[in-house]
């Protein structure tokens, strides 16, 4: 049973609607039976893959984001960002982008951004006369910042799969996160002129209004500051930063009197669903990737790619195309777990830094969340906005242009991702 058959069986099972985790576990199990490998290896590898300290950050960051959403803290963040960029033309569209950056500093997942901020952003934009299509498209596009700017759940999962430093990876996301924000803001400014979008805030502030917004929003704005400071200073590991985020979110919720014990249990249950659905895939992908390694599929792909070219620029271009296509069909976690062991050895052999490649991979897959047929962000935004999925895919399309520009910059200028981690922790090959 070759690696190609294993991958083919996985794709077939996945397309029948079998849960992705089982779609990966079944070919691995069949492979072991056929090759008379002890089947206890299956469950041992699944459990070992989850028995990891870095992965503890995943449920904790999800919990922190859910706490912020359910306590109304997200709304305060949105109001605060209005102060920063609301006066620009197309102010609320700009606020949408900047609020996603701030929320990215707390949550680390695109879907958490859409779930938490989506309603607030779309409602506010609709009230100012934006079309539902424009409001939803900007919300979807700006959600791609979440998994790039630290903390980031996909980057933590990549770090586990690539066995590389999660701290370096998270820090590597800072500049790219700011870059994506900048290109989206330029695109929004362009549309604001062309479509004559209003300023977010007209006229003068009422007496005490600014003070009130600052008072309401500033403690919430401290959350990303605390997380970044904790990581930059080296006081906390990403996992410990996640614990601090939860503690701070609970303190804020208690101070704002917005969270009850019943609410806390509801938030915990939501967290469990998101965590288990993602990490069950991680567990199954561990055994799936192991069978591919035993079958030497990564080596075969490496030989084929390096035979074609050993130029890192060409290899990265091929990888971009492959990952963009993969992102159109595969769920992010599954794609990371499958493609990391396959592509990373080839790219590192060609001189690509694994931290740089992690950023490139995750951003490719995030763009895939906005494209058909498996655009998870679009599927989540469709019921919120009431726009059919097919129409929403078309509406988001113009925002892919700045995202592609950012992708090209991130891919071919490694300094965007490597400058900060190299500055903080020294240069590493």
């Amino acid at each position: 049973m070759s690696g190609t058959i294993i991958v083919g069986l996985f794709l077939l099972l996945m397309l029948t609607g079998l849960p992705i985790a089982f779609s990966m576990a079944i070919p691995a199990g069949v492979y072991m039976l056929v090759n008379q490998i002890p089947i206890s290896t299956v469950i041992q590898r699944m459990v070992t893959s989850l028995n990891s300290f870095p992965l503890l950050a995943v449920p904790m960051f999800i919990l922190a984001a859910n706490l912020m959403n359910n306590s109304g803290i997200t709304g305060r963040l949105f109001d605060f960002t209005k102060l920063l960029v609301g006066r620009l033309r197309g102010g609320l569209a700009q606020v949408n982008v900047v609020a996603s950056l701030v929320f990215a500093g707390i949550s680390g997942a695109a879907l958490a951004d859409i779930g938490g901020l989506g309603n607030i952003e779309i409602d506010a934009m609709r009230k100012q006369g934006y079309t539902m299509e424009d409001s939803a498209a900007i919300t979807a596009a700006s959600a791609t910042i979440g998994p790039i700017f630290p903390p980031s759940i996909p980057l933590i999962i990549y770090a586990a799969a690539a066995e590389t430093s999660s701290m370096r990876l998270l820090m590597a996301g800072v500049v790219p996160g700011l870059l994506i924000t900048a290109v989206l803001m330029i695109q929004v400014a362009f549309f604001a002129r062309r479509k004559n979008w209003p300023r977010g805030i007209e006229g003068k502030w009422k007496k005490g209004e600014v003070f009130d917004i600052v008072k309401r929003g500033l403690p919430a704005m401290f959350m990303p500051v605390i997380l970044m400071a904790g990581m930059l200073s080296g006081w906390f590991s990403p996992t410990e930063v996640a614990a601090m985020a939860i503690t701070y979110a609970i303190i804020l919720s208690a101070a704002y009197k917005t969270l009850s014990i019943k609410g806390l249990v509801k938030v915990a249950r939501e967290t469990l669903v998101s965590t288990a659905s993602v990490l069950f895939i991680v567990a199954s992908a561990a055994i799936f990737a192991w069978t591919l390694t035993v079958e030497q599929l990564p080596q075969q792909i490496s030989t084929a790619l390096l035979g074609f070219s050993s130029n890192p620029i060409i290899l990265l271009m091929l990888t971009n195309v492959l990952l963009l296509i993969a992102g159109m069909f595969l769920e992010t976690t599954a794609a990371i777990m499958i493609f990391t062991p396959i592509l990373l050895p080839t790219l590192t052999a060609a001189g690509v830094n694994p931290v740089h490649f992690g950023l490139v991979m995750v951003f490719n897959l995030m763009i895939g969340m906005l494209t058909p047929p498996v655009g998870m962000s679009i599927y989540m935004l469709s019921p919120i906005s009431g726009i059919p999925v097919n129409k929403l895919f078309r509406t988001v399309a113009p925002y892919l242009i700045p995202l592609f520009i950012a992708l090209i910059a991130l891919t071919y200028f490694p300094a965007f991702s490597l400058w900060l981690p190299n500055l903080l922790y020294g240069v590493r090959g």
Partner: protein
Amino acid sequence: MRRIVSTLCDAFQKLSVAFLAALCLSVFAQIILRNVFSAGSVVLEELARFSLVSLVFLMIPSLTINKQQIIVDFVVNRLPGGARRAVEALCHLLSAASSVFLIFAIALIMERNWSIRTPAMRMPNYLFYLPVALGIALNVLAALDRMIGAFAKREDAK
């Protein structure tokens, strides 16, 4: 069968909430121990990792019964009603069969290594794997229940 599975899923979910709390408190306690008392605890770290493994596997049947597993359904959704239900039923059967396979794999580990203890908490293997086995075992029932539901054209909770 649906009522039994739902009750057990609910119980497992409550247990998972407890594991999530244990996970968060363990990591938080470690931060306090390290930064305030300059001491670390391998027991707390192992407890946190055990909690993560346990909560993921205990939640699997809930994901199955509530249609919360991550799937790719754009192909199946294009099939006519009868064919779609048949494919769905087949998928649930495959989920149940692979869960049985995983239980068998756990049984093989336990046969030889049931008493081996974890390094820090000294927890025997059978206890470490208990939540894993329970979650997968209940998933067999959950998947079979969904399979019956697909044949009976039952509308499941989403």
